[in-house]
């Protein structure tokens, strides 16, 4: 008897976690995959099996292809800008002074503000007529932009908001990475007559690569799932120029009530994010541990 109890104990311990995980993650994913082969309007008791029809229809939809393109473009721009600006900022902020600590805190604060507030704030900042940004442009004699109202600039405008929000977090992670580099290494490099740029390229950047990699993946996955800013600031417009995957799913599911179709798009998102996560863990286990 005690031996059986002993064997059951670990399962009993993890049971709550397993229940939660199954109920709120596994089951919905399974149900979504199931729904993607059906046609259903959310209300009717009948779910009609349609096989791969939803997928076929989706891949033939020009809007969906544009949505995929938008998502990819948004993600690439966000990731490049977010990591590309955070790294120099981290190098600059990696000092102990009250001023640097203040700047660090200041750029981190957007990270803890709700996305809804941020969206409203930036909608106002980017307002073509009364917005602060156009006022600034005017000061420098640049003609005003239409920001969110122009298909040419709307997606970039959303990228700016995303970069602004994630900058503090990314910078903080980079600073942590920089601080994990033993100072003697940089001193050894100085004694080796290494110029600052050489030290950065040959020593700091390679030592920082696990951090960089972590941030790229985290931002990649996050960007693919962008929703709040789009829902509040552009509703996917103008003319679908900011319509991305999650917003597309939301529209089909909760505005057009084509649950089966939305589920099929959800499966596509699952595949993309799943693949990225898999790559992350695969490379994570192989990444070099510098000590």
């Amino acid at each position: 008897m005690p031996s059986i109890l002993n064997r059951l104990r670990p399962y009993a311990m993890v049971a709550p976690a397993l229940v939660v995980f199954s109920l709120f993650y596994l089951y919905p994913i399974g149900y979504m995959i199931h729904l993607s082969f059906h046609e259903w309007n959310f209300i009717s008791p009948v779910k009609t099996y349609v096989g791969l029809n939803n997928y076929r229809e989706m891949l033939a939809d020009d809007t969906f292809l544009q949505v995929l393109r938008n998502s990819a473009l948004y993600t690439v721009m966000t990731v490049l800008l977010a990591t590309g600006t955070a790294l120099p900022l981290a190098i600059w902020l990696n000092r102990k002074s009250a001023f640097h600590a203040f700047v660090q805190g200041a750029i981190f604060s957007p990270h803890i503000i709700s996305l809804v507030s941020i969206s409203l704030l930036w909608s106002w900042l980017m307002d073509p007529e009364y917005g602060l940004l156009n006022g600034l442009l005017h000061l420098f004699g640049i003609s005003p932009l239409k920001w969110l109202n122009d298909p040419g600039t709307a997606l970039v405008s959303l990228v700016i908001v995303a970069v602004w929000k994630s900058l503090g977090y990314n910078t903080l992670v980079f600073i942590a990475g920089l601080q994990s580099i033993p100072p003697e290494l940089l001193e050894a490099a100085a004694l080796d007559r290494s110029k600052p740029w050489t030290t950065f390229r040959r020593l700091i950047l390679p030592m920082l690569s696990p951090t960089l990699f972590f941030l790229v993946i985290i931002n990649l996955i996050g960007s693919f799932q962008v929703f709040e800013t789009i829902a509040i600031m552009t509703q996917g417009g103008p003319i679908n120029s900011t319509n991305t995957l999650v917003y597309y799913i939301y529209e089909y599911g909760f505005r057009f009530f084509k649950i089966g179709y939305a589920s099929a798009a959800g499966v596509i998102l699952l595949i993309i994010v799943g693949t990225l996560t898999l790559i992350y863990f695969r490379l994570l286990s192989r990444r070099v541990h510098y000590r």
Partner: protein
Amino acid sequence: MARIELIDVVKRFKGETVIPNLNLTIREGSFTVLVGPSGCGKSTTLRMIAGLERQTSGDIRIDGELVNDTEPGKRDVAMVFQNYALYPNMTVRGNIEFGLKNRGVPKRERERLIRDICEIAGLTPYLDKKPQSLSGGQRQRVALARAMVKNPKVFILDEPLSNLDAKLRGQMRTELIELHKRLGTTFVYVTHDQVEAMSMGDRIVVMNKGEVMQAAPPMVLYEDPDNLFTAQFIGTPPMNVLPASRLPGLRTEGEGHAEFVGFRPEHALLSPETAELTREGLVIAGQIATRESLGAEQVYKLRCEAGSFFVKSFLNPYVGGDFALAVVPFERLYFFDRDGNRLRRLRAVRPQLAAAGV
């Protein structure tokens, strides 16, 4: 080869004075060891020589040239760090080559230098390995090779052996001494271990609280210490020190008033009875508290009225029971004043001179 001079060097860290005023000349071609307790400013001194830390005031000269404003890479100084500080993302070859590349040494020349140095250091089989896959001793050799290949004027080494196990440490000690002989370059070596200092240096600088207590060859430090600190820092066990006022048999003549009397444990002789020994030296009666036999030598700890002290003997173990008389020849006594400074002009008076008067 270069001489290093530190002139009136002061170092403060945010108001905390670590080095109040340092004047030190490190002779060219010498193997100079800075030794002292942890936190006494040895590393700080080294780092100022290397240019990794700037002195608050004062001058540093290398080879006569003022280097106050010379950046580390331009001082022609190579440093071996305690934790080696090898570049973890580069192979052994990359680590050694990095400094050469930055100096603009052409590829052919670089390859020849690396080949030669790795031959000497026994690193040839590991050229394409990363430091993480090497043992402590091998990493140490890479760090040395990386320093040597630059053919610097000065080598500075900050506790380079403290991360190695005892056996390897002994081996590397010998290798470093040989290396210094072969290269003839100035070595500045930091350690907190006086045994290491005594066995390696041809000149030892004893430091305490940022000040030089004494700078001299090892045997001079041992035989002729300037002060109590040096006397008690060098030697195992260290020099015995007893308050002069508690030693009734002692009379002195000459300049100064002896506050403390010191003698080396190996200069005292144990004897069961007084005999005529009183005429030869100072006699201290004591109880043997502990005995430690190290094979060739015996170390006794004695307790007497004036305090406790050690006696080291290379003779057969003492058999006279727990009571013993320790006899220290008069010429082996050291006298120190209240501040711990050596009183060189003070001598012990032999009792027979006094007895002649009776």
